[in-house]
C-alpha cells in the first residue's frame, strides 16, 4: 500500500502544509555560486511560502533576508539585481544597507521622530555555499549545511563544480503538470530505468546500480555497461571530467531532500531543481556544467560521439515510431519522464486509481521517500 494518501499529490491544503513544514524548515538549492558575482548583486528565491533575497556584501559574504520590507511588509526586491549600493523598498523608499540594516527613512523627523533606525534589520535567513551551489534556509540560525548533508559528500560524484563551466545552451526549464513528489519519485524510481528509458539510458548497467538513503537524502550510483565503458573515448558526448577517474566511472544521480537532484556523469554535471508551484504543477530547471574546453574540442567530441553511437550501441526508439512529436520517440529521457509524470498525475483523479504493489527493490526508494515525507508532516 502506498504510504501517502492521494491527497498528498492533489490537495491544496496538503500542499500548503507541506510548504510550511518542509520547505519552511529545510536547506534548499538556490542556484550556482557564480549567479551572485559582485558586492551588491542579489537574487531572490522562493522557499516554500517565503521569498528570500540573497545578496553579496562588500566583505564578499552572502547574506540572506526575507524579501519583506520592515515598514509595511511590501516585497522589497524583484528577481535579480546587480551592484546595488543599498536595498530600497519601492513603496515608501525605506532603505537598507547590504547587511540588511535600515539606514534611511524619508521624512524621518516629521513622520517617525521616535524610530531608531539601528534597531531595525530585515528578517534574517541562512545562506551558504556547498559544492559550488547556493543553499538557503528560511530560518536565521539553521543547522550548518555540512550537518544537513552529513555523510552525503562521500557517496556523490567526485566532481568539483566550481571548476566546471556552465554550458549556455544546456539550460532547460519546463512546467510539468504533476506534483513535485511525483517528479521526485520518478527521479528515484530505479525500476523504471531499464523500461521507460530502454533506448535512452542504455549506456548504464541498471542491474548493478547501488542506491540507498543517507538521512533524508537519496544516493544513487550505477556503472556503465561494458560496451559503453570500453568505448568511452568514442562515445562520451563531452570532454571527460578530470575528477572522474576510472574508479568512479558511471553516473552518480542523488536526490537531495526535499527537491533537488544531480546527475554527475563522466563528462557532464547537471542540476535538477523541482520547484513546487501548486498541487499539480512543478517547474523543473536543469542546468549543466562541463569540463572547460574550447569550441573546437566540444564540436570534435560531440561529432565523434554522434558518429560512433549507432555502430557501437545500436539505437532504435522504443516503439519504432518516427513521429518527432511523440515524447516516447524523441530519444530524450527527460521527455519520457515528463510524459510518465503527467500521465500519473492525471490518473490520480480516476476513481479506479490504485497501486497494486510496488517493486521490492527498484521501488523501495519511493516507499522510503514517502515515509520521509510522512515523518516530516507528522512532526
Amino acid at each position, binding site marked *: 500500500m502506498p504510504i501517502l494518501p492521494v491527497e498528498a499529490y492533489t490537495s491544496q491544503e496538503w500542499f500548503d502544509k507541506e510548504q510550511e513544514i518542509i520547505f519552511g524548515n529545510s536547506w534548499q538549492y538556490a542556484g550556482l*555560486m557564480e549567479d551572485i558575482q559582485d558586492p551588491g548583486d542579489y537574487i531572490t528565491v522562493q522557499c516554500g511560502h517565503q521569498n528570500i533575497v540573497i545578496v*553579496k*556584501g*562588500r*566583505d*564578499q*559574504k*552572502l547574506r540572506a533576508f526575507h524579501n519583506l520590507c520592515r515598514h509595511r511588509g511590501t516585497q522589497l526586491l524583484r528577481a535579480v539585481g546587480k551592484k546595488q549600493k543599498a536595498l530600497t523598498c519601492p513603496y515608501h523608499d525605506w532603505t537598507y*544597507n*547590504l*547587511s540588511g540594516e535600515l539606514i534611511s527613512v524619508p521624512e524621518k523627523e516629521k513622520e517617525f521622530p521616535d524610530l531608531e533606525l539601528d534597531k531595525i534589520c530585515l528578517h534574517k535567513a541562512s*545562506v*551558504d*555555499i556547498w559544492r559550488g551551489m547556493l543553499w538557503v534556509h528560511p530560518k536565521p540560525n539553521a543547522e*550548518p*549545511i*555540512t*550537518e544537513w548533508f552529513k555523510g552525503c559528500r562521500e557517496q556523490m560524484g567526485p566532481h568539483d563544480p*566550481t571548476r566546471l563551466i556552465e554550458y549556455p545552451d544546456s539550460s532547460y526549464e519546463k512546467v510539468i503538470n504533476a506534483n513535485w513528489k511525483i517528479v521526485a519519485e520518478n527521479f528515484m524510481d530505479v525500476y523504471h530505468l531499464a523500461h521507460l528509458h530502454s533506448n535512452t539510458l542504455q549506456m548504464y548497467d541498471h542491474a548493478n546500480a547501488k542506491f540507498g538513503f543517507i538521512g533524508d537524502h537519496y544516493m544513487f550510483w550505477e556503472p556503465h555497461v561494458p560496451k559503453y565503458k570500453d568505448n568511452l573515448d568514442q562515445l562520451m558526448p563531452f570532454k571527460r571530467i578530470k575528477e572522474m577517474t576510472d574508479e568512479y566511472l558511471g553516473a552518480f544521480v542523488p536526490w537531495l531532500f526535499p527537491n533537488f537532484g544531480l546527475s554527475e556523469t563522466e563528462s557532464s554535471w547537471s542540476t535538477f531543481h523541482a520547484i513546487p508551484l501548486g498541487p499539480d504543477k512543478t517547474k523543473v530547471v536543469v542546468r549543466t556544467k562541463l569540463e572547460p574546453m574550447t569550441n573546437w574540442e566540444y564540436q570534435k567530441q560531440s561529432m565523434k560521439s554522434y558518429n560512433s553511437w549507432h555502430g557501437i550501441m545500436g539505437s532504435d526508439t522504443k516503439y519504432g515510431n518516427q513521429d518527432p512529436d511523440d515524447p516516447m520517440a524523441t530519444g530524450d529521457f527527460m521527455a519520457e519522464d515528463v510524459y510518465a509524470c503527467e500521465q500519473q498525475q492525471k490518473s490520480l483523479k480516476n476513481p479506479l486509481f490504485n497501486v497494486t504493489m510496488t517493486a521490492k527493490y527498484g521501488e523501495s526508494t519511493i516507499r522510503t521517500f514517502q515515509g520521509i515525507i510522512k515523518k516530516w508532516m507528522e512532526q
Partner: protein
Amino acid sequence: MFHKLKISNLRQPIADATTVTFDVPNRLYDAFNYYPGQHLIIKFQVNGKEARRSYSLNSSPFRDEPLEITVKKVKGGLVSNYVNGQLKIGDELEVMVPQGRFYADIKKEEYKTYYLFAAGSGITPILSILKSVLYEAVESRIHLLYGNTHQDSIIFKEELDALEQAFPNRLQVVHTLSNPKVWSTWEQWKGRKGRIDEAAVEWFINQHPPIAQTTSYFICGPGAMNTGIRKALMGLDVPRELIHIEQFGGTKADDNHTIDSVDNASLEVHINGQTHSLKIPKGKTILQVMKDANTQAPYSCESGVCGTCACTLVSGTVEMKSNMALEDKDLKKGLILSCQSLATSESIVIRF
C-alpha cells in the same frame, strides 16, 4: 603560577629569530594544553634581573608537536636579544600555563572560512591557528595575508609553502613585502609589495571570496597595523565581533592626550577574599600601587595587551592609558585593566 620547563631545542627559522622548543613533563601535560592563538608568559633572568614577556605559541595543539615559541629580535630589546644569542639548549625557563583570549575555538565539524592577517613576528599565533584548522577542521578553508619587510625576514616561509602544497584547495597564502630586496636571493620578488594597509585588505578580501559563509578574522602583529586592518574590515561591513586582534606591543601611547588624574585617590581592592585599602599617588597606575603594597595582583605584560590584570570597577572612575585587551562588551561589563588605569575620581573600588 610559573613552572620550570627545559628547553629541548633551539633553531633559527630566519637569521633574526629563534624558535624555542620546550620539554613539558608528563605531569604538566594537561595544564599546558592550549587553544591555538594563546601565548605563554615567561620569566627571564637577564643580567641578574627578572623580566617577564609574553610569547605566542606557534605549535598546534591538534598536532602531536611539542610546545614552541618563536622570538624575533627587536632593536635594543632586552629579552628578544637574550633569546637570540644567549639562551642554550638544556636551559630552564619559568613559564606560566598558556593563556589569552586571542584564540580560535576550532571544531572538527565546522564549515568556516578563516581570514588571517599577520605581520612580522605576528605570524606565530596565526601559524598555530592555521595548522590547527588544516588538520582538525577538514571542511574549513584559510586565506592568509602575511606582511614582512623583505624576503629574508619571512618567518616560516618554507613551512607555509609546504602547507600550501599539501592543502591546495584549503589554504591560500599571499605575501606582501614593504621593502623587498632587489638582489637578495637568486630571484626577484614577484609577489605583492607594500604594507598591509586599508587598500591591501580590501584587495585581499575581494580576491578571496569565501566559500563557507561562516567567517572569522584573526589579526596579529606589532605596531599600529592591527587597528588599521580592523578599520578596513569594518569598512567592508565585517561585524566587529568576528574580528580578533592580538597586539604584540610596539605602539607608542598617544602623546597629545594626557590624562588628568586625581592625586591621592583612595583605592579599595577586593582580591582573593581579602580587602585592601590603599592610596593612589597622581600618575601611578592601580597595578603599580598594588605591587608597591605587595598585594598579589595578577599581571604579566604591564602594557595593556594581555588582559591578565583585568578587574571589575565596582565604583569610581578611571581612565586607561591604553587598552588592547578588552573589547566593548568587556568594558560594558565594567572590566578595566589595572596596569593601565589612572584614577579620575576621589574614591575607587575594584574587584578581581
